[in-house]
């Protein structure tokens, strides 16, 4: 599974960006409309898609999309 591509697609869909380049180094501040509420929407969409549940304190510490993807991989491996 290409985790990065899936996460990028989810972010673009939730934020209704049309097209936008999102890579592992992308942070919330780089992306229009990525605020605390849309962050919650993104995380929930990721949880639904990957059938996982984040630990909130952990997921909030993610510095960029790459770290978020890393956490998804860990969660998926635990299943």
């Amino acid at each position: 599974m290409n985790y990065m591509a899936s996460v990028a697609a989810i972010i673009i869909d939730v934020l209704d960006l049309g097209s936008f380049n999102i890579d592992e180094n992308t942070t919330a501040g780089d992306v229009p409309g990525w605020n605390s509420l849309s962050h919650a929407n993104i995380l929930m969409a990721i949880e639904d898609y990957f059938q996982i549940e984040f630990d909130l304190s952990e997921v909030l510490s993610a510095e960029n999309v790459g770290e978020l993807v890393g956490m998804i991989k860990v969660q998926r491996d635990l299943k």
Partner: protein
Amino acid sequence: MSVSGSVKGVLVAIDAQIVFIISEVGEIWSASGFLMSTISQEHFLYPFAERSISNPNGKCCAILERGNLVEYSNLEMYNLAIEYAKRILSIKTNFGEVIPIILTTGIDLYAAFIGVSIAGCVPTIFPPYNKKQDINIYKKSMSELFKRISVRNIISSRSILNSEMYYENIIFKEDFASNCIGLNDIIYPFYKKIAFLQHSSGTTGSKKGVMISHDNILRHANTYADCIGLVDGDVIASWLPIYHDMGLITSFLMPIIKGNRFVTMDPVEWSMRPDRFLQIVTSTKAAFAWFPDFAFNHTVSMSRATDIDLSSIKKIINCSEPCRKSSIDKFYQRFSQFGLSNDALHASYAMAENVFCVTQTKRSTYPVCDYSDDVAYVSSGRPMDGVGVYIKDEFGDFVENSDVGEIWISGLSLTDGYYLMPELTKERFIEDVYRTGDLGFMRDGELYVVGRNDDVLNINGKKIVAHDIENIISNIEGVISGRCFAFSVYEISRSRNGLGILFEHNLETDLEIENLKKLILKNVASISNIAISELYAVERGFIVKSTSGKISRKLNIEKMLSHFHSGF
């Protein structure tokens, strides 16, 4: 208990009168030689202190901690607050000194606020540093603010701040167990003038602190409780941050004063898991909750709950400028199946300058709407007892026939203005009437709020000054200085207010412009902690300025609407 012999220690004087002495062993003695022992009956926390003695095991609050709702009794809250008060007195703070509290939601946040006030100092709460912000900019702006309001001490946590930051003295909550001193049976100094400061949102050191007196908060808590029908035994549920007036007054100070239990959770956790809030309402049979407008939509969009019971809710109050009918409708449609009554949905108009509530709906029917230019505006209700509301035109004359004008307020809850900002206070508080800057109209005695009259933008319930954002952008290389425009945009698809930006530039290629856009997004997010929703590079001369060189907000919004797709 009388004193034999002399007490050596630090003399604490007010207006050249020695009021009390902190002895070498940390005891507090009155100047007349008596060990001091209670708090003033005029203190706004006196009812709480009394209750802690008369009903020590009564439930004060419950806080969601690591998935569990942890109960705290009146006495537990009071004792921890007293530990904070003792600690503050032991470090020789000045009488009436402003002490900021920077803590996340937890018992220490509430206890520290109470403790600072009991110790004769002035508490004020600020949000913790957010990782999206640039740490250096955060430190600089807070440093500017703390210098302006003469901060010497601060209460925080090692997980939030470190001692190399910008304060003379940080009281870390983690140090309490080993550092509390034995000050028993104390009369705490009573700083009557200011009970606490309520700071506005802001992106720089220009945050303004509304001065709220003991009289203000006591009167307001009692009047507002009567207004909404709060009675003994009613539980108040909240996820609201208490650095904001809505959470501070409705879901902490009013219940503390009136003796109602409050149950709460961290706002960040709420944003991720709003169902947990609904589960708290269910398990505690909460009767009251306050939401900003966006929270109704966010809860609807995120909720998956199927096992909740909201029938205990007497009032869930939309407190925003403006309240939107669509938000209330969607919330009711989603949750009526779980027992939410249609007469539980209410609206309010509030601001820190009036402690909190200005108007409040009381009717036992679904919120009333009125239509102006095809937009449905929700009534924010009638003025609370003792509050006057006036609609005036730009010349300060009363408007006629329910026309839209600026909202002015007066009354006994009106505060004394902004801390150490006499010019701004003079500008906004005119002969005991406060000029709000909000636009609205009155119909059948009820207030309808429609927007703002000045350069304050309401972004998801957070009020920010447009100039602050425009200054950030103007300082970025590539943007023509002074040629940018910040505005609030209603995002229909997400049912919330976002931040929009127009800017003029001196670049030539599309790649340069795209890179500049990325830089603007990043800088605004890191400095202001606000994400831009819409960002437009416009040709030179697009942004309209008045002859005096000021940005014309009205004309730019009209021009913006005619040029770009937008969901205003």
